[in-house]
């Protein structure tokens, strides 16, 4: 356990090194947030009460939250593991006396948390101060939010690990990763809140693990899910996490038998 904590810490520290990039990223992130919020606001201007029980302020808060999560859940894809398989570095990773799955999990968690607490939190703060995004008022909400956010990060990792594991079998894993990340933008609730979707599409999304990676913590933040409902959503996240992690470990186990190391 200490080892994995150390890995997470190292990965966290590595992120600190790129401060200029982080600042540029933050500015860009804010800009896209404003764009996305403008479009949602236009929807409300076209028709007040466009979505029942979802106010303009909720929509703005939603935009701030989803922008804050982009870095933490590597929304546009995650290529570290694929690169290490392609370059053959994976050979030494596999030879080391630790669990391969936890090795990546710890590092990704370090990276995720760093992203969330710097870029994410700062961005959200700007949304709260300048654009009137809301802040959860009850302690319960904060507790659910903390649990649900951690589960969202883990869920996102377990999905990205699965997609990366394709790299054990084929050299086209980058393409698969792109599909795996772009393909879930809608059901995670990033493109548009699930509440905006027609009922049948919402149901379809909730049959997948993807809302748990983004939409769930946002709904909890907004206070749209409280009490039993919040616990239910958290339970759903945990359930999917167990499934995806089991599949990921299985893939890693099968993959290391299949793996051909490239290079020389």
């Amino acid at each position, binding site marked *: 356990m200490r080892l994995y904590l150390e890995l997470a810490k190292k990965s966290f520290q590595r992120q600190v090194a790129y401060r200029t990039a982080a600042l*540029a990223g933050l500015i860009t992130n804010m800009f896209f947030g404003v*764009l996305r919020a403008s479009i949602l606001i*236009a929807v409300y201007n076209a028709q007040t009460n466009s979505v029942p029980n979802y106010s303009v302020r909720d929509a703005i808060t939603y935009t701030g939250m989803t922008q804050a999560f982009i870095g933490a859940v590597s929304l546009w894809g995650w290529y570290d593991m694929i690169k290490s398989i392609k370059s053959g570095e994976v050979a030494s990773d596999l030879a080391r006396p630790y669990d391969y799955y936890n090795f990546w999990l710890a590092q990704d968690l370090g990276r995720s948390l760093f992203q969330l607490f710097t870029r994410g939190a700062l961005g959200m703060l700007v949304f709260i101060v300048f654009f009137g995004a809301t802040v959860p008022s009850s302690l319960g909400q904060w507790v659910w939010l903390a649990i649900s956010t951690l589960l969202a990060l883990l869920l996102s990792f377990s999905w990205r690990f699965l997609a990366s594991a394709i790299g054990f079998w084929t050299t086209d894993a980058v393409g698969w990763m792109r599909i795996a990340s772009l393909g879930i933008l809608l059901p995670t609730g990033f493109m548009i809140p699930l509440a905006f979707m*027609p009922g049948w599409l919402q149901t379809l999304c909730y049959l997948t693990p993807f809302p748990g990676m983004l939409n769930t913590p946002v709904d909890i933040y907004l206070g749209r899910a409280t009490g039993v409902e919040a616990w239910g959503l958290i339970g759903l996240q945990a359930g999917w996490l167990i499934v995806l992690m089991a599949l990921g470990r299985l893939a890693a186990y099968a993959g290391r038998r299949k793996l051909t190391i490239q290079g020389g």
Partner: protein
Amino acid sequence: MKTESSAALQSIFHSAWSEVAFNWRLYRKLIGAQVRAQMQYRTSFILEAIAQFAGNVLDFVVVLIFFARLPTLGGWTLPEIGLLYGLSSVAFGLADMVIAGFDYAYFGPNMVRLGEFDRVLIRPVNLFVQVLSSQFTLKRLGRIGQGAIVLGWALLALDRTWTPLQITYMIVTLVSGVCFFSGLFIFGSGLSFWTVDSLEVMNMATYGGQFLTQYPLTIYGEFLRSFFTFVIPMAFINYFPTLWLLNKPDRTSGPIGLLAFMAPFSGMLMFALGVALWRRGVRHYASTGS
């Protein structure tokens, strides 16, 4: 005397022409090799093209979801937005495919930071042609195809008879858009000679601009509207021409008049600006030395 100078002129003209012809042949050869190389990894190409297509489809799915609740958005109907979206998407996709060598996300980290640009500098061939032919992202066909489908659908759904002038100007607009977005990418790779770390801000102009121009400019606040009209004159390559094509007034400032026909100038201006900065950057370039 007279014949001498005209002969000199002719020889200058001749050598300029043969240089263009040489560069064009070289470009075609290198791009051909690029395309063949990408087709070697057939599965990879197909996957990436699908991802490009799907990524773009999602943008439009969101528009569709909005319109499931609304009759109009910012005073625009769905086919009208489709036209705006299609023009913007196709122009951006084409630029992104052709100008990929100047995509700053590739140019900055590889050419400048790793010093690969050294190799470009020592070859006795036009720098611009070399960089232009160093990449050609065929997978963007997925994005372009999706944009073209929406554009085609919008043109049909609008159910109008388009005059030859309108059709011509639509094509002019598209080409201007390609120039404009290419100029932005070249500008970004020019910036990378000074900074690689903060290049991400260029995404606001490129990807942000493309995202923004998918919707009518009227829905944005005063700041964004002015920014994309006066600072980065993107409104001229998409929004104003579309207003003219659809006979729509600009809700905020009345009749648009000649604003609709600024697209070629705006496109050329951005392209020239990009090239100018890039050339300054080349002079500024100091190798990483490793």
